[in-house]
């Protein structure tokens, strides 16, 4: 078999293009619309650069300085502070673990309260949802700062901050999981004479628990990342040392701390993805 190759000469191509203009170039309307969208984006960007007072000289000199810092970071070296940093790593893990657990325990009842199929009263679940939204609108670092002023410096403030933020986010996710579940087991329990509480316990819980557990593990991963930075405002963990070492320009220690963060996050991701798979796999079989 031989393959046919079509060679178009210049004028043939021009003839085809004239016959089917919409195949060669998009219609003018589309072009104008695309051009306008790009112009709007670029216009807002230009306004942003002007409003924020961007100075492109500073950008250049800053990049040069950054490159210099990177050369100073090599090789990563903790100096004599390794035990201190290991302790901070433990604190970070503790903040992530207790923060996720605490947030989940508080969010658990709220997940049911905010679900339409558990509380049919529209005002009740609307109110619960707005509370969750408001708490969620405040970043966890702001919570950390508030808790530092309330309970003092240290990892405990970090735990409370992570727990508060996780509570709001998990509450929303839990309520969505509860709303998405299958009605039939609940109807089964009710039809055999079960009370509403028993309907939740035997009809809903077995369905939502694996979903909740996997979301919880996912949040633990994300909180492990977040708990490294709550220290920047004094709420314990690696972030405290990181902010300090950046301020005193100890670049080798900075790169060592960043390396510790990356390794910790990678290990936690690995373990929790294994666990998550185990939970979901088990629930599918059972």
């Amino acid at each position: 078999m031989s393959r046919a190759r079509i060679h178009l000469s210049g004028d043939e191509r021009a003839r085809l293009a004239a016959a089917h203009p919409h195949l060669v170039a998009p219609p003018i309307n589309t072009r104008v619309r695309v051009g306008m969208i790009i112009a709007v984006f670029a216009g807002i960007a230009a306004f942003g650069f002007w409003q924020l007072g961007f100075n492109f000289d500073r950008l250049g000199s800053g990049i040069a300085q950054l490159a210099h810092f990177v050369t100073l970071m090599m090789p990563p070296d903790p100096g004599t502070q390794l035990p201190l940093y290991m302790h901070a790593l433990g604190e970070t893990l503790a903040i992530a673990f207790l923060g996720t657990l605490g947030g989940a325990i508080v969010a658990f009842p709220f997940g049911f309260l905010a679900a339409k199929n558990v509380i049919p009263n529209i005002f009740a679940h609307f109110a619960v949802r707005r509370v969750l939204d408001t708490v969620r609108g405040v970043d966890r670092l702001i919570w950390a700062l508030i808790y530092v002023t309330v309970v003092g410096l240290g990892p405990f403030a970090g735990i409370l901050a992570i727990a508060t933020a996780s509570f709001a986010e998990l509450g929303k996710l839990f309520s969505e999981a509860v709303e998405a579940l299958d009605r039939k087991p609940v109807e089964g329990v009710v039809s055999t004479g079960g009370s509403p509480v028993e309907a939740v316990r035997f009809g809903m819980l077995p369905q939502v628990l694996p979903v909740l557990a996997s979301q919880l593990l996912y949040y633990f991963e994300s909180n492990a990342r977040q708990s490294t930075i709550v220290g920047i405002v004094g709420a314990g963990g690696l972030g405290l040392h990181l902010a300090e070492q950046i301020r005193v320009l100890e670049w080798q220690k900075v790169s060592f701390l960043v390396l510790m963060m990356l390794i910790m996050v990678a290990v936690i991701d690995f373990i929790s993805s294994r666990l998550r798979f185990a939970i979901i796999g088990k629930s599918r079989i059972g």
Partner: protein
Amino acid sequence: MVLSHAITRLPDEQIAPLIAHYDAAVRARRRHTLIMFGVIAVCTVLAAWMGEVKPDVFFAHADRLPNYFWSITPVLHWNTLGADLSEWYWNLDHWLKLLLDTILIAYLGTLIGAIGGFCLCFLASANLVKSPWIRLGARRFLEFCRTVPELVFALLFVVAFGLGPLPGVLALAIHTMGALGKLFAEVVENIDMKPVEGATASGASWLTTVRFAVVPQVLSNFASYGLLRFEINVREASIMGFVGAGGIGQDLVEAIRKFYYSDVSAILLLIIAAVMIIDLVTEQVRHRLLGFGAQR
């Protein structure tokens, strides 16, 4: 044949092993649950020890938290509502300007990051790039960008570029590039490969293939992810000021540290309102975008 509504019941000697089996299964599940709770309890105790959790101190001072929220609640009287409101928001012009700065930081960070992620995502997709070196290189780079928290980049950049919104924008842009690059690459890996084959078969170069066979398929999804990221970045931009990287965070941190109670609630409410409005708007736009994409 006799019709009977009685449920047939197996003889006892046949039921006994079934019941025993059921009991064993229930016992095994209970044991698993107990072990899991045991592990969680041990981890909790360890973490509480590590995290310096002191329940007695916490409960002794438990009233401080509600007290704090009580103190930041402004004093508003119905009779003098206007005056009280204007006293609460005494610095509104300045705060609104800072809020605009914050949103612009989020916008620029999202835009620059999305452009970077857009350029890198095609290199990180397994169906477009055959060379594992380029692909894995792009993937590792994106992973690094999104694993290091924004605030750490912001701290570094504040030292290199000086105080102001510039380090905030760059920090957000780098993190956004990492996060969006990964999401974009996942979208690209799920495209219909037929247009790509068609373009390749007609002799298109790699860039032309991407432009005419891939981009039209993925653009609406990209826009939706970009908007989602913008929502997140508005939140993140509100804390960039904590490390001196511009936006409203600077004033918030000052108000919290110096116990300007009513200012704390005023700024917090502004941030929450801005975040909620932006969430609502982008959600609408995203639904329309995805609906529009599905119709085509």
